[in-house]
């Protein structure tokens, strides 16, 4: 303990006011097929932009640090943690969130159907991330066996423990994809 400076004090000095500090930066994103011209501060994450600015609350904040996968969205077709992406750095990208998976007429995406049929969720909070991640998994094409699905879906934590049903749902969709 001798060499420890016990935290008698907590807090940071404020950033010096700087002329270089930016205002809002223009940003173009195509979100669920709709082109949007936006303005954001550089510290706004893609997740916070979706939820707080665009009120697309389907994408969830579970940890805000890339430790749970609840915020998974597809950016240019690839699944990523939207909590760790600064929105400005995704200028020009196409973003698909859970709200963009169903058809315009309301018909659910096959993965959404499979999740309902296999009871692959309970509280539902990790579910949008699981589904976006599963859609990404199918597109990537690196998982076929249950072992591969389990490993490739390990970036999405489900505290309710629906994992076995999630794997069943994805296997179901993969089998139908293959049969096509």
């Amino acid at each position, binding site marked *: 303990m001798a060499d420890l400076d016990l935290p008698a004090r907590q807090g940071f000095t404020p950033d010096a006011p700087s002329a270089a500090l930016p205002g809002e930066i223009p940003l173009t994103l195509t979100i669920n097929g709709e082109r949007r011209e936006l303005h954001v501060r550089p510290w706004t994450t893609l997740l916070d932009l979706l939820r707080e600015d665009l009120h697309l609350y389907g994408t969830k904040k579970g940890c805000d640090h890339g430790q749970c996968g609840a915020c998974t969205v597809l950016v240019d077709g690839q699944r990523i943690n939207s909590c760790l*992406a600064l929105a*400005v750095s995704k200028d020009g990208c196409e973003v698909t969130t859970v709200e963009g998976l169903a058809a315009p007429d309301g018909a659910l995406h096959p993965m959404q159907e499979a999740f309902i049929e296999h009871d692959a969720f309970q509280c539902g909070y990790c579910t949008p991330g699981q589904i976006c991640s599963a859609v990404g998994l199918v597109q990537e094409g690196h998982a076929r066996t249950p072992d591969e699905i389990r490993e490739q879906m390990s970036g999405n934590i489900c505290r309710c423990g629906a994992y076995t049903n999630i794997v069943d749902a994805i296997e179901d969709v993969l089998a139908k994809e293959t049969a096509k």
Partner: protein
Amino acid sequence: MNRFSYARPGSVADAVREVGSSPAAKVLAGGTNLVDLMKYNVERPAHLVDVTRLPGLKEIEETGEGGLRIGALVSNSDVAYDPRVQERYPLLSSAILAGATAQLRNAATTGGNLLQRTRCYYFYDAATPCNKRAPGTGCPAKTGVNRIHAILGTSEHCIATHPSDMAVAMAALEAVIHASGPNGEREIPIAEFHRLPGDTPERDTNLGADEVVTAVTLPTPRFATNYTYLKLRDRLSYAFALVSVAAAFDMEGGTVREARIALGGVAHKPWRVPEAEAMLKGVVPERGAFAMVAERILQGAQGYGGNSFKIELARLAIIRALSQAAAGTPQSQTDKRIQ
């Protein structure tokens, strides 16, 4: 997250200029570690240089000597699944797939992975002392919760580990890191890239504050048959290594022409002991020799209580990894049975 200014340069030269413009400038690529740390107030850059649009850094190219040059912005997924990497450097592909998750690998870049910072609990918690985050405040890990901490190359100031899997494989493959700075390009062998904590634990690497990583080159491939990446952790996926071993042999007939062994999760950098590797030169690989090599690699290892088990775990893991490499049965990263 603190306030910062933001630039998105269009060339490497501009990026270098931007990075050099402020001592508190930071490079943003995939963001998977930097944004994470900024939200914890561990990193508080004044200026963020977004390099994601730099041209020419997203390709994997032939070097002309059978090797590959991986652009700093190539994502971890794109490296791991590149057919040339899978064929020539399956060790690297395997190590990358042993780390993180599909989402993180899609976002994380090659350069960023090398530069990721330690997962030490105290480093991450701005309410506690930490010599790496706040030099001079002390290292509570030494007498605190240190299950994940280093057993080799520690100093009285810091016992943190480097958390990368990719870098461990690159260390075994003797990759070379290319950096661009105000004085032009330079090459840094990976063994000289990461540092030991010593009395400057705040510095993870020997990369200059005004330098930008542009690429990693992999030398002529020799380790595509007898190799493995064995990672042991607290759950079967999505966890940092307690101990990991990258092992590879260049075989000639039944004997070892050259052995490469790098450890992850045990030190402030991927841990290699060339003298230990040399012990296998010209020998028929077998368990008895592996045990002696493990002893040599772990010479001087020191535990701090919570992590003391790592010494024995590393010994067992080295022996097993060398057995896997010798048998040509690399560890699968999806079937969690240890081969």
